[in-house]
C-alpha cells in the first residue's frame, strides 16, 4: 500500500511534485470541469494513504481476494533452453482475474467508497482492466460501466462476456480507431457529465495527475514483493528486471520500488508491432516525441500537426499511442532503458513459454518474455532476470488462433 510521502515538492524518485510533474512530464491538461474531481481525488487519496485502516483493508483484499503475494517462479526449462542468465517470472497472471490490473482496481474501488460515490466508469483495451474493474465493483456493490473500442471487443470477446457476467455494462466505442485510446476519450467525456456521482477508475499510469501516481502506488506491490522474494529465493536482488509497457502500469509497479536500487537494470518493452514505420507499432518511447495526450505531457505518437497517430500491436493492451509520464521521466534520466519487440518476437516468446513452462502468457506479457529471452542469451549463467508476467493468455486464445491461421474451438 502507498506509503510514499508526498510533501516533497521537488521531483525525486518519490515524485510527482504538487503539480503532478515527474521532471517536466505529467501535469494536467484537461477541461476545467474535471479539475474539481481531480483535486478531490488527490486529496482523498492523500488522506487514505495516511489512514492505517484504509491500508489494512487494502492489504486484506490483496491477500484474501486477489490472492497475493503472487509467486516468483524460476523458469528452469526456459532458462536451460536459452543457455544464459536465469529467467524468473513474477506471476501476476496468477492473481484473481488473471492480470496485474486488479491491484489497482480494488484500491481505486476502495477510494470510490471513501469519496461516497456509488458509480464507476472505466476504459479498457485488452479487457483485463475492464474485467478487473467489473470484479472490484461487484465485490463492493458499485455500479460499473466499461468503455471499450469496437475493434477490441472483437479481439477480446471472452473478457467482454466476463464483464457482462460480473454485472457491468460494456459500452462499445465507435469513434476514431475504435481501440483503447478512443475508449479513454469516451470515458473522460462521460466523466465530465457525472463527476459528482461517479469515479473514473483509470487502468494505467496515464492521464492527468493524480492518476499516474495513484495507479503506480497501487501497482508497486509487484516490485516490493519481487524485492523480498528475490532476496529470499535468490539470496540477492536480480541483475535485470523486464516488463512490458502499454500505458505502463505493470512496468511502473514493478520498477518503482527498484528505482533507487541502482545495481538493478530496468528494461521496459514496448510493442514493436510489424515494423518501425508510423502506424505499424505502438512504441512512443522508442519512436515518438513529447507531447500531450489524455491530459498528460509525455512521449506520444503524433503527426507534425499534433494529431495522435494510429498505432498497431497485435496485443490490445499495448495498442496505445501514449505512455505514462513517469516512464518519460525515467527515460530522460536514463534510469530505465526502453526498447520494443515485434508481434512476431512476442508470438515466438508466447510459444516458448507455453512449451517449456506450461504457462500461456498474455500477448502483452509475451513482449517482456521475448526481451528476457533475448537478454538471457547474452548474459552469464550466474545472472538473474526477473520478468513481470503481467497476465495470462487465455483471453488471447481465439486471437492467437486467428493470427496463426488455425481454427479455434
Amino acid at each position, binding site marked *: 500500500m502507498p506509503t510514499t510521502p508526498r510533501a516533497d515538492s521537488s521531483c525525486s524518485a518519490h515524485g510527482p511534485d504538487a503539480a503532478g510533474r515527474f521532471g517536466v512530464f505529467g501535469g494536467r*491538461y484537461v477541461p*476545467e*470541469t474535471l479539475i*474539481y474531481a481531480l483535486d478531490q481525488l488527490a486529496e482523498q487519496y492523500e488522506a487514505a494513504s495516511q489512514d492505517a485502516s484504509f491500508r489494512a483493508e487494502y492489504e486484506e483484499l490483496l491477500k484474501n481476494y486477489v490472492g497475493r503475494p503472487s509467486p516468483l517462479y524460476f523458469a528452469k526449462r526456459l532458462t536451460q533452453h536459452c543457455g544464459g542468465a536465469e529467467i524468473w517470472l513474477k506471476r501476476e497472471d496468477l492473481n484473481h482475474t488473471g492480470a496485474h490490473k486488479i491491484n489497482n482496481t480494488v484500491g481505486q474501488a476502495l477510494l470510490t467508497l471513501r469519496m461516497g460515490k456509488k458509480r464507476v466508469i472505466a476504459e479498457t483495451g485488452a479487457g483485463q482492466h475492464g474485467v478487473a474493474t467489473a470484479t472490484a465493483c461487484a465485490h463492493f456493490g458499485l455500479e460499473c460501466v466499461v468503455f471499450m473500442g469496437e475493434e477490441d471487443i472483437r479481439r477480446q470477446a471472452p473478457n467482454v462476456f466476463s464483464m457482462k457476467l460480473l454485472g457491468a455494462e460494456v459500452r462499445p466505442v465507435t469513434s*476514431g480507431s475504435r481501440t483503447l485510446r478512443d475508449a479513454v476519450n469516451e470515458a473522460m467525456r462521460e466523466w*465530465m457529465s457525472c463527476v459528482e456521482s461517479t469515479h473514473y477508475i483509470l487502468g494505467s499510469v496515464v492521464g492527468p495527475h493524480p492518476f499516474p501516481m495513484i495507479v503506480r502506488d497501487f501497482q508497486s506491490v509487484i516490485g516490493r514483493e519481487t524485492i523480498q522474494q528475490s532476496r529470499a529465493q535468490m539470496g540477492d536482488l536480480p541483475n535485470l528486471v523486464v516488463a512490458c509497457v502499454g500505458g505502463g502500469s505493470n512496468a511502473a509497479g514493478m520498477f518503482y520500488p527498484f528505482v533507487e536500487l541502482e545495481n538493478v537494470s530496468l528494461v521496459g518493452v514496448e510493442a514493436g508491432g510489424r515494423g518501425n514505420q508510423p502506424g505499424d507499432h505502438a512504441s512512443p518511447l522508442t519512436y515518438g516525441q513529447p507531447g500531450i495526450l489524455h491530459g498528460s505531457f509525455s512521449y506520444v505518437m*503524433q503527426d*507534425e500537426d*499534433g494529431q495522435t497517430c494510429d498505432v498497431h500491436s497485435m496485443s490490445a493492451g499495448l495498442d496505445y499511442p501514449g505512455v505514462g509520464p513517469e516512464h518519460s521521466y525515467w527515460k530522460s534520466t536514463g534510469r530505465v532503458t526502453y526498447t520494443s519487440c515485434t508481434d512476431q518476437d512476442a508470438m515466438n516468446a508466447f510459444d516458448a513459454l507455453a512449451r517449456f513452462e506450461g504457462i500461456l502468457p498474455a500477448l502483452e506479457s509475451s513482449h517482456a518474455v521475448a526481451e528476457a529471452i533475448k537478454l538471457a542469451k547474452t548474459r552469464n549463467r550466474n545472472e538473474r532476470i526477473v520478468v513481470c508476467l503481467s497476465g495470462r493468455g487465455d483471453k488471447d486464445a481465439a486471437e492467437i488462433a486467428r493470427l496463426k491461421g488455425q481454427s479455434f474451438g
Partner: protein
Amino acid sequence: MSAIDDLFTRLRHQDRKALMPFVTAGDPDLAFTAAVLKELAARGASMCEVGIPYSDPIADGPVIQASYTRALDKHVKLASILETLGEVTPQLATPVVTMVSYAIIYRHGLEKYADALVAQGVAGMIVPDLPIEESPQLAKVCEARDLSLIQLITPTTPNNRALRITETSSGFIYYVSVAGITGERAKLPTELIERVSWLRENTPLPVCIGFGISRPEHVRLLAPVADGLIVGSAIVRRMEAAEKNPQATLQEIGDYVSSLAAELN
C-alpha cells in the same frame, strides 16, 4: 487591447450582447469554412469561433467530434487552416478566435502558433484542455502579442478558483453552462443564471455562456444575464449536410443564426 476587448467595450456601451457562433475548420473543406464565416458575420454574429480539428477532443460531444473527424479524414492541416483564416479575416467586421487543443499548440510551438494567429488577423484563442495551472507560459506569449487567452469556468469550479481564473483570463470569460461536454440540450440548469450574475459582479471581464445553447428561448432567457452567448453544436450539426449541399447549408445556418440574433437585443 485585442480586437475582442474592443468588441465588448463597444457592445457594453451600446448595451448590446454578443452572439458567438462556432464552426469547425475544414468541414467539409476550407472553402466552406471561409464562406460560412462570411455568412455568420453577415447574419448577426459578433465574433466567430473557429474549431481546429483535433483527433482526441475530450471536451467535445459527438456532434463536434464527428465534425473534427470528417475534417481530419480529409487531411486538413493547420497551415492551410491558418492561411484560409488570413484570407477571410480582412473581409470580416467581427473578430475571430480559434478553439484549439493544447496538444496542437504545443506541437507547433507556443510562440509560433501565436505569431501565426497575429499574422492571420486572429484575435485570440480558447484552449479547452489548458487549466490555469498549466497556462502561465501561454498567457505570457499571448499577452506580449495582444492576443486574448480566454479561460473557462464551469459549474464544478469552486468560487475562489473562479476568481483566480478571472485574473488570468483575457478577452472574456467562457462560462460553461453545464458540467459535461459540448452538445445541444433541451434544458439548462437553473443555477446558471445565479452563477453568471455572481461572476459578472466579481470581474470586469465580459462573461459569455456556452455549451448546450441551441434554441431561441435559451437566448431570450440568458442574453439579459450575460455579455454574450456561444452556439456550437447546433451549428455544427447543420454542417453535416454541407458536403452534399453547400449552398443550402449556408442558407440554413445563416437563417438559424439570424433567428438567434433576433432574440438577442
